[in-house]
């Protein structure tokens, strides 16, 4: 569904990604793990068009998207729940969710049942239903994370990019986030997941890639990566 080949990207003259390749098959969850500064978020930003890749090929359902601006990539079916949530603080919860469906409500994407999908999101995140008329800026960190995920789901995406959905959350909420990712997976949603909690991410994922200094150092089935001694030592030890 999402295919990244030999991607080079960075900021200005500083190259962060030195040619990485990742395959995300349809209805599978792929996780990208690695230490801080390895280039995980840069990968996500390049895939969704927030930064223009220097070179390489990105295909969404076979369609090349590497040179498209971010709004065209979103219309093509890529939803990005960004690091740090980035909800629209002065807009209400429902307004945030409707914006997630913007391409469906305007043009560029089949409309489908927007109201029904909003109900579905409220079903996944009951807290959001309680606070539907509140401004997003008044939500707690955990609720904002749920709103960011719900907003991304409103696109009915072909691929969902989740960047650090557990960042800054209390342990109970981290569990909740992973429970929801597992549920989305069971519904057949294709996901690329970037996580600091590598063990939990590998538990929910089908495949994993390890990113080290802008290069893929290991990849394979999530189960086999979890048992790889090198991966265990570097990413699955205490504190992970």
């Amino acid at each position, binding site marked *: 569904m999402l295919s990244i080949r030999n991607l080079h990207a960075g900021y200005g003259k500083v190259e962060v990604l030195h040619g990485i390749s990742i395959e995300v098959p349809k209805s599978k969850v792929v996780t990208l793990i690695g230490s801080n500064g390895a280039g995980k978020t840069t990968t996500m930003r390049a895939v969704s068009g*927030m930064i223009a890749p220097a070179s390489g090929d990105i295909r969404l359902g076979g369609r090349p998207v590497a040179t498209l*601006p971010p*709004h065209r990539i*979103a219309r093509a079916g890529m939803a990005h729940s960004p690091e740090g949530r980035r909800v*629209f603080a002065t*807009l209400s919860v429902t307004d945030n969710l*409707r914006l*997630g469906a*913007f391409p469906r409500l305007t043009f560029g994407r089949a409309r489908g049942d927007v109201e029904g999908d909003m109900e579905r999101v409220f079903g996944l995140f009951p807290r959001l239903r309680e606070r539907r008329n509140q401004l997003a800026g008044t939500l707690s960190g955990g609720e904002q994370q749920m709103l960011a995920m719900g907003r991304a789901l409103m696109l009915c995406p072909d691929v969902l990019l989740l960047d650090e959905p557990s960042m800054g959350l209390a342990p109970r909420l981290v569990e909740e986030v992973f429970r929801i990712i597992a549920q989305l997976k069971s519904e057949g949603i294709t996901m690329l997941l970037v996580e600091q909690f590598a063990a939990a991410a590998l538990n929910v994922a089908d495949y994993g890639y390890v990113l080290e200094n802008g290069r893929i150092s290991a990849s394979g089935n999530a189960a086999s990566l979890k048992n790889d001694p090198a991966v265990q030592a570097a990413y699955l030890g205490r504190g992970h």
Partner: protein
Amino acid sequence: MDTLLQSLVSGTLTGTLYAMIAVGLTVVFGVMRIINMAHGEMVMLGMFGAYWAHEAGIDPFVSLLLWMPAMFAFGMAVQRFLLARVIPSGELNTLLYTAGLSLLIANLALFFWNGDYRTISLDYGMTPARPFGISVSIPLAIAFGLAIALTSALYLFLARTDTGRAVRATAQNPDSAALMGVNVARIDMITFGLGTALAGAAGVLLAPSLYLYPTVGEILIVKCFVIAVLGGLGSIPGAIAGGVLRGVVESLGAVYVSVAYKDAIGFVLFLGVLLLRPAGLFGVGRTS
């Protein structure tokens, strides 16, 4: 008591028109982080539009139907072909650029239309209406009603429509808005078009009540910039409250202090509010 009521009413009427100009300025700032120094010239163009329409035998208020879409298109073109190229070079450059645009438009107007003071005299503007013993200029009252209608229409557009939501989201965080599939360049065009249309419409509405001349925009931009900052730059309710407040304070000041100090009193109010609330009455921030 009558004097008080009279000055409250006329202050509210003029204040609402100030508010309308300030709303255009504040919406553009909120979404694009541009302080459009040429906003006053857009008002001036609207005034001259009404003047030429009147000369051609069309009622100035009817000419709104022509000038609002025309100013909307003009604003979109200015954004698309001029500002869009300058904005990436930084806020200060954009500020200077719009200041240059302001001078250019005002001087082109001087060149083509000369600097004479003109007025539009309407048959129904000769004698004021006198409801409850208060004197109300009929063209100003019509302008007041239309200003409220147009500003409310803009507000509803921003609050209720999907494109309006996209405008507000872009104001909040352009990068995230783009991730939602919002074409930020197009939103910028729509926003600048709306701001320009609102300024032009305010000019049309004001034309029967003010002298018009090519450099009238200079005074209006200073007043309305102060109003927008007073209300909190980027906030529409703030611009409306600021406009009406300033209109009323000016009008009360003219009656109870001195006509000569009318503008000064407006600025004292401005300084006072900013001392107590540096972000303005309805100050809004932006998440990074």
